């Protein structure tokens, strides 16, 4: 029997139309818009100014604190200006706008595609390179990787878990990466293991990607301590806590981190970014983005420079279909509709989904019929309807006591609700208010 997490979960239609489309490089855009806040934590501080000439890989913004990440130019050209530009958050955020001119890379970046297997760097060197390269979690949460790899004193970890689940429907970026860059994933994983002094790693892959499981299992034998685990298809298995439960049968305590059960979870895309940063000196300047949707002419996976307008990606997939209702940044379950198709691709953009009008509309909201389906599907064991009601009545203290902070915002409750109640919207609102209260209490 295949492993999975035991509590809750849903299985939406997979719709992985782009699974067979090989990763193509998108031609260089004419202009890139690189937001300074594209990771969790403090926004980066720009170190370039208007008129500066930058190369591909030049540092343009320095991390604005410990939990923050460097940002590098994804193209070569001239800084046009630093201005507020609409990004996928729906608001205008400070961004560096660069006019592209040629494609000249920083000299120290190794652009040779040959795989470097050498693992002689010390853990400190590896972590420094990851930090310098501005690597963040590419699964969507964009948490700075160097922070995740800095294990605090008093905690010991024994397993690295590589998240190759890609449980979100539609998305295929990680799937393609596994098929096309398997060795890089293994070396990246080995580097992460070395940086954290762990000798065991598990790569969890859902069973709807048999080709990736087969390929990785075959080459995993060449690398020490890496095990591939096939998992039953179940959303949200890509959540850290669910994945750990599925592969190691350990439960992250309420309010705790994977560190508390001796694990560090990294996305498979992050493993490649780590490989490139450490072995090739290449900072995080491009990523694979799936562009797909039921009405999209040519669903594809694209290697895109950070800062490219989503418009160009949509063009490459055959243009915006006429019956478009919503364009979503990310997966269909956790992604967010964009306000404009001219938003830049950031480090966290795993997909651009185009929903037709019929799919995109929310259903009419009826009264809760107390069927408790939201409770059954919650992978965190929360009572979604209850949290929603408490959040709606602004009882923040009670909401905190009901463990709202354990919600992983996977959206299973809203997805499954037969009455169409927007449960997650209220829970998310409550969660952000409660987290503000908790933060102000600490200060």
């Amino acid at each position, binding site marked *: 029997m295949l492993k999975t997490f035991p509590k809750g979960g849903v299985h939406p239609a997979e719709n992985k139309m782009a699974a067979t489309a090989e990763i193509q490089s998108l031609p260089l855009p004419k202009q890139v818009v690189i937001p300074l806040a594209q990771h969790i934590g403090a926004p980066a501080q720009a170190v370039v100014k208007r008129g500066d000439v930058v190369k591909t890989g030049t540092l343009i913004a320095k991390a604005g604190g410990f939990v923050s990440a460097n940002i590098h130019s994804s193209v070569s050209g001239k800084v046009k200006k630093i201005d*507020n530009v609409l990004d996928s958050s729906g*608001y205008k955020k400070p961004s560096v706008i660069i006019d592209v001119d040629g494609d000249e890379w920083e000299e120290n970046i190794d652009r040779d595609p040959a795989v470097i297997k050498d693992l002689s760097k010390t853990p400190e060197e590896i972590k420094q390179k990851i930090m310098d390269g501005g690597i963040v979690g590419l699964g969507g949460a964009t948490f700075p990787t160097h922070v995740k790899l800095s294990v605090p004193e008093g905690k010991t970890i024994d397993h690295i878990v590589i998240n190759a689940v890609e449980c979100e429907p539609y998305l295929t970026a990680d799937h393609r990466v596994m098929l096309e860059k398997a060795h890089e994933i293994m070396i990246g994983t080995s580097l992460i293991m070395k940086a954290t002094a762990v000798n065991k790693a598990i790569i969890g892959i859902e069973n709807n990607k048999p080709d990736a499981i087969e390929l990785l299992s075959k080459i995993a034998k060449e690398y020490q301590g890496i095990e591939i685990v096939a998992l039953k298809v179940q959303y949200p298995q890509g959540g850290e806590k669910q994945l750990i439960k599925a592969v190691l049968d350990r439960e992250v305590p309420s309010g705790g981190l994977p560190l508390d059960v001796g694990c560090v979870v990294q996305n498979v895309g992050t493993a490649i970014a780590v490989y490139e940063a450490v072995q090739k000196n290449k900072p995080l300047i491009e990523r694979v983005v799936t562009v797909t949707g039921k009405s999209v002419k040519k669903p594809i996976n694209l290697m895109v420079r950070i800062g490219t307008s989503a418009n160009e990606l949509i063009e490459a997939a055959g243009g915006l279909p006429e019956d478009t209702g919503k364009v979503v940044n990310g997966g269909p379950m956790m992604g967010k509709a964009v*306000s404009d198709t001219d938003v830049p691709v950031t480090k966290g953009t795993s997909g651009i989904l185009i929903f037709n009008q019929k799919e995109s509309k929310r259903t009419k909201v009826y009264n809760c019929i107390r069927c408790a389906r939201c409770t059954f599907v919650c992978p965190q064991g929360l009572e979604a309807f209850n949290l929603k009601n408490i959040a709606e009545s602004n009882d923040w203290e009670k909401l905190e006591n009901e463990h709202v902070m354990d919600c992983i915002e996977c959206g299973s409750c809203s997805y499954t609700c037969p009455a169409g109640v927007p449960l997650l919207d209220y829970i998310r*609102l409550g969660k952000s208010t409660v987290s503000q209260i908790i933060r102000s209490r600490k200060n």
Partner: protein
Amino acid sequence: MDDLTIVLLTLATLSGLGIILALILYFVAQKFNVVEDPRIDEVEELLPGANCGGCGYPGCRGFAEACVTTDNLDAFYCPVGGNDLMKTVANALGAEVSEKDPQVAVVKCQGSPEHRKEIREYDGPQSCAIAHSLFGGTTNCANGCLGLGECVEVCTFDAIHMNPETNLPEVVEDACTACGACIDACPRDIIELRNVGKKSRRIYVSCINTDKGAPAKKACDVACIGCGKCVKICPFDAITLENNLAYIDYEKCKLCRKCVTECPTNAIVELNFPPRKPKAEKPAEKKAPKTEDNAKKVIAADKTEESKPNTNQE
């Protein structure tokens, strides 16, 4: 045992128990007696009992307790009762209180669909806070009113209504007590408490867009574009410009209305002024009758109460 003995025994036991418990209760009541200042009840009687929290205390009782324990009443103000009530409270407590200018809520956005084009659809929950957390809004202005009416829902005094034509909230001045509930509810800080002013006349910048001039104007015809003309023309230094947005200090403003005519985008609103005489150098304020004719610019907040229906009750 015969029946009589049973009855007598029962009576005796129960009466004995009653007496013992009464004694215990008496001594407990003596021991844990809470001495409460009787003036708290007196003051609470005087208060409106709306429990709106506009004074900053948890309900009228909380306010009464605070009033009784303090030495100086100057920092206390019940926005519902106003100065008259505070005088009565001060008299009851034998204290002095300084008079405060009464305030009223103003809505600082004029972004009706006529001025601010809707370019997106929103089909999520009808809550301003949720919409605010998701995106900048259905128009290109990421600062202005979202039009979902959370301020209307929280108002205890029925003093704010959505105008279905402009899709903006309008304050009913006579009903508004300046309790501040709508201000807390608004995720975008569009509503501000301002002094009522002489004859209820007020001038304020009815915009909170901090974008630069060009994008602000593009998003909304009546946006403050931060041009600074009003700052220059103001003879009383009442206007400041910060983040591309002008702000009129109501303490300093002498209601000369120069800025209103100077503003190129009509972002500055005058309320309850008589109509201007054509080409008059100085506005004749004295004898002009109060009319509603000058309501051209008065969109956000006027006294008309015609817009009762609330678009967001469904």
